[in-house]
């Protein structure tokens, strides 16, 4: 297998591009794809202060590494979710990466700072763990960006993540979610700008990026995620992709180009209803925001 660029020995194939790459040209491909996504979707300005949502996994460490390599001012934020050994190990990966690269890592610990962990919170609120986790992450990243004066929150969502979420939203016609499934959500109504610079790269590519850059990341799957719907959607899409490489890219980018704006009114209608949370001041459509309600239920009404 030869590198499509230099004809040297290749280490990585990217089937949807019908191309193979040596380590040097594969790393360049990843950086170029991120730069292209940032430019095409006007994600970041050179003067922005970015806060990267860091989990210790491949995607968040890769996007942090690439942004810093491209010259952006990017700090990280790690959330301790209280998921036993998994949180201990993922936190260690995030801290080690930041220390090795000389980068600033902020930390918020859900049990210590907010009095509950994800397993307890999910059970008390009768939510699936990934739902309780997702809403906690969104709330705490938004809050940290506001508190510490960051212009933008960066997440490591890749093409596989976005295609799987889109698939789920289409299967259930969740039109308000479709209206805001964008690579950039602008700052408004008290929410910071949010960007997804990895949307042009698949998760196999992000794992390969980390291996080739020598970035140690948590490979183990979160124990709370086993059997969730999102993984099922990924499996279904991977079966289609195996028979027809490039389908996930066409599905997601075709949606952005030809369909997403049809759902914008649904998303904006929800935004027009936003109030301030009576407890924390975050934007919400109810008296207490979803995070404060979760914290209240998790603490048996003591929050």
């Amino acid at each position, binding site marked *: 297998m030869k590198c499509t660029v230099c004809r040297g020995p290749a280490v990585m194939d990217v089937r949807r591009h019908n191309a193979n790459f040596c380590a040097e040209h594969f790393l360049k491909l990843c950086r170029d794809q991120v730069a292209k996504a940032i430019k095409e979707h006007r994600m970041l300005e050179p003067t922005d202060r970015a806060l990267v949502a860091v989990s210790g996994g491949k995607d968040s460490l890769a996007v942090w590494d690439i942004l810093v390599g491209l010259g952006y001012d990017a700090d990280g934020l790690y959330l301790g979710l209280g998921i036993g050994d998994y949180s201990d190990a993922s936190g260690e990966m995030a801290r080690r990466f930041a220390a090795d690269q000389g980068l600033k890592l902020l930390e918020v610990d859900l049990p210590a700072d907010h009095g509950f962990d994800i397993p307890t919170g999910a059970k008390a609120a009768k939510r699936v763990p990934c739902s309780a986790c997702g809403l906690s992450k969104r709330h705490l990243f938004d809050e940290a960006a506001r508190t510490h004066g960051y212009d933008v929150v960066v997440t490591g969502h890749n093409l596989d993540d976005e295609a799987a979420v889109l698939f789920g939203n289409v299967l259930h016609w969740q039109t308000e979610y479709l209206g805001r499934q964008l690579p950039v959500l602008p700052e408004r109504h008290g929410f910071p700008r949010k960007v997804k610079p990895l949307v042009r790269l698949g998760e*196999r590519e992000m794992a390969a990026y980390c291996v080739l850059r020598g970035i140690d990341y948590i*490979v183990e799957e979160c124990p709370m995620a086993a059997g969730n719907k999102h993984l099922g959607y990924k499996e279904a899409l991977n079966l289609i992709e195996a028979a027809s490489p490039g389908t996930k890219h066409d599905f997601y980018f075709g949606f952005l180009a030809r369909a997403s704006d049809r759902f914008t009114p649904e998303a904006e209608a929800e935004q027009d209803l936003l109030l301030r949370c009576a407890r924390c001041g975050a934007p919400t459509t109810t008296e207490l925001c979803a995070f404060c309600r979760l914290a209240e239920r998790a603490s048996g009404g003591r929050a």
Partner: protein
Amino acid sequence: MQVRLRNPRRELELPGPMRVHALLAQLEIDRETVLVIRSDTIVPGDAVLGDDDVVEIRPVISGGAS
């Protein structure tokens, strides 16, 4: 060769030489869902794995939906 798998962690002993693609086919693993790693670098699908090699088959799919 020694083959290390994850999620859950386990190890297999298989005879070499064998191409990476053949190894994944034998284990019924979709090649798009893993990387094969030997000595801290990625081994391409057409590479031949030797009898003495130690390889990791690393899954690349992660499941958080947030």
